[in-house]
């Protein structure tokens, strides 16, 4: 990567840096909407990804900065489509949240589950980190489902059927079954109404023409 008269080597970031980059990226999206601090956030992204000072690049030509941002953003994109990354749940910010917390949450989970130290976790490959995080969360969810099944709350009484029925614990969106189109079934001819039957599709096309 050539920025100004200096050449930099772009490398895919490790987990800790990547988490920082993701945080800056969401700040960039916000900055685009608010029209505030966009340039400084893009410069911050590049300096974090390359491990250099912002002052080293902030006065260079804008198109070199943008080029570098595009290259680094592509380089640091996740190469596997993890179900967890499709999560649509919106979490409210907790009272005990702070700016750098994401890294500590990840570190806490990995240290707790695998007894790894912070240096080892920080240097994980991005995809390894996400895949393991997903496994930890799946384990936790299945454990919670098992515990839920042992409580009375999981079997509410149904007044209509006069029976207690099992009510499974809600799963996060990325663990739920994907919606699939219902299978097309041929209707036996004797069940089709008599006369000129116009399907909904035919009706729509004739209406539009």
């Amino acid at each position, binding site marked *: 990567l050539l920025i100004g008269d200096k050449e930099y080597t772009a490398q895919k970031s490790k987990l800790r840096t990547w988490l920082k980059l993701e945080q800056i990226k969401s700040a*960039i999206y916000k900055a*685009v909407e608010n*029209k505030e601090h966009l*340039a*400084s956030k893009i410069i911050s992204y590049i300096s974090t990804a390359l491990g250099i000072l912002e002052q080293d690049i*902030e006065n260079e*030509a*804008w198109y070199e*900065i*943008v080029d570098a941002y595009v290259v680094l953003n592509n380089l640091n994109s996740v190469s596997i489509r993890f179900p967890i990354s499709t999560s649509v749940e919106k979490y409210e910010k907790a009272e005990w949240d702070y700016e750098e917390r994401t890294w500590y949450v990840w570190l806490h989970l990995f240290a707790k589950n695998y007894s790894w130290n912070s240096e080892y976790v920080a240097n994980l490959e991005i995809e390894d980190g996400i895949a393991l995080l997903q496994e930890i969360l799946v384990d936790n969810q299945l454990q919670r489902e098992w515990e839920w099944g042992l409580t009375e709350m999981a079997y509410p009484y149904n007044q209509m059927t006069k029976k207690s029925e099992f009510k499974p614990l809600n799963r996060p969106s990325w663990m739920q079954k994907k919606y699939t189109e219902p299978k097309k079934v041929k209707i036996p001819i004797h069940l089709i109404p008599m006369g000129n039957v116009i399907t909904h599709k035919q009706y729509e096309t004739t209406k539009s023409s």
Partner: protein
Amino acid sequence: MKPLNLPNALKLYDVIAQYLPEDVNIDGIDFIKQIIDGIISKEKHKDFIDIIMLSTEISREDILELSSQELLELFAECLSINKILLLKDFCMRIGYHA
């Protein structure tokens, strides 16, 4: 003249975006003409000076003393050196609206 850094390039875009022609495949002369026509029709002559001031280190007073020929040349150079079409493309792609 040096190309602008990113913060100033975005400031430039904020000023000039409203005058940039939709059709970017026109020739250079028409391109500049349409921008200047836009500035004149909106009677925002200050924007013309601001664009030059942002891109150069020339003061307002010095700009006002330049001949029309020099002003036009300077204006065209500002757009060219700052790759204004590329700037527009980048801003559109990321959804940044001036």
